């Protein structure tokens, strides 16, 4: 044979490996699904969060929501004000009514930012403004808590005239 057997075997092995890698890269892959929520300032940037805010005066914040569930999804960020400083956990949302809802429908891999206003109605220290991310479960026809949440702590006081 003109070409040496061992050389041919090595070349064939390299071609097989390259072919397998090419097939693996061509196959559609689904990564681990996740969602994300972020709390930003009024200009939709990190930082410059309000610390001391007046009572009964609305403040503007911005929410970042991202969908990486592998399919389009209806997501809702529920913002709640906790005057006793309690925060949601990865499995349990706060058991208080929401003050603001931000609902978005995002394609897979999509994200968005939305500005919203929220008002603190009572003075206090270390008041928590918490945002919880919920996703619509179309099979059950109800919202499900994703476990993703963000929060900031603020102090609220009445403005003395």
């Amino acid at each position, binding site marked *: 044979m*003109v070409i040496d057997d061992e050389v041919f075997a090595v070349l*064939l092995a390299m*071609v097989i490996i*390259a072919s397998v890698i090419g097939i693996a890269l*061509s196959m559609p892959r689904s990564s681990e699904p996740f969602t994300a929520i972020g709390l930003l300032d009024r200009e939709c940037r990190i930082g410059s969060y309000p610390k001391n805010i007046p009572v009964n005066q609305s403040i503007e914040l911005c929410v970042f929501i991202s969908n990486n569930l592998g*399919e389009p999804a209806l997501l809702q960020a529920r913002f709640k004000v906790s005057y006793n400083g309690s925060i949601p956990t990865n499995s349990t949302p706060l058991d208080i009514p929401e003050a603001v809802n931000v609902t978005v*429908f995002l*394609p897979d891999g*999509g994200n968005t930012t939305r500005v919203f206003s929220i008002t603190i109605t009572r003075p206090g220290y270390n008041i928590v403004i918490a945002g919880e991310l919920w996703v619509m479960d179309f099979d059950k026809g109800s919202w499900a808590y994703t476990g993703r949440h963000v929060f900031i702590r603020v102090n609220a006081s009445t403005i003395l005239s």
Partner: protein
Amino acid sequence: MPRYGFAIASLLLVITYLPLFYIESRAQAGYDEIYSRALAIARLLRDMGSRGIDVSRLSENLSGVFALLDTCGSSDLECLVKASSTLDSIEAEAGRLREASGFQITISRLSLAIRIAILSSIPIIFYIYFPRLYSWWWFRSRRNWVVRSYRHGRG
């Protein structure tokens, strides 16, 4: 007279507020209906997106509808009308997209299958034809060589 006056005043109050109550309940019913429609369209777009149809533009429009519903509440009829008309256009566009994308999905699946078939066949083609190709090239590159024969060590 005062008795009749009280009855007439009560009747006037009922006549005044009954239409408002009716409008309020109709508006709430309208809000609920539009919200349910929006949820149904969201489910439709979710199914279409799962099948590989590009619904990013419609997703943005639907997000706008939910933003309207979040902010305007059940008593803002103008807002509800705007939301309803946006849902109409999304539904129509989704229907057109679904019809047009069937062929595109078939083509993309076919191209993926062809790509995998070609990549799978490369090692087989290499095994069969590379030695032949290499031999052809080897002999062609040496076709001008002269073979010198030796007779018992003499040139």
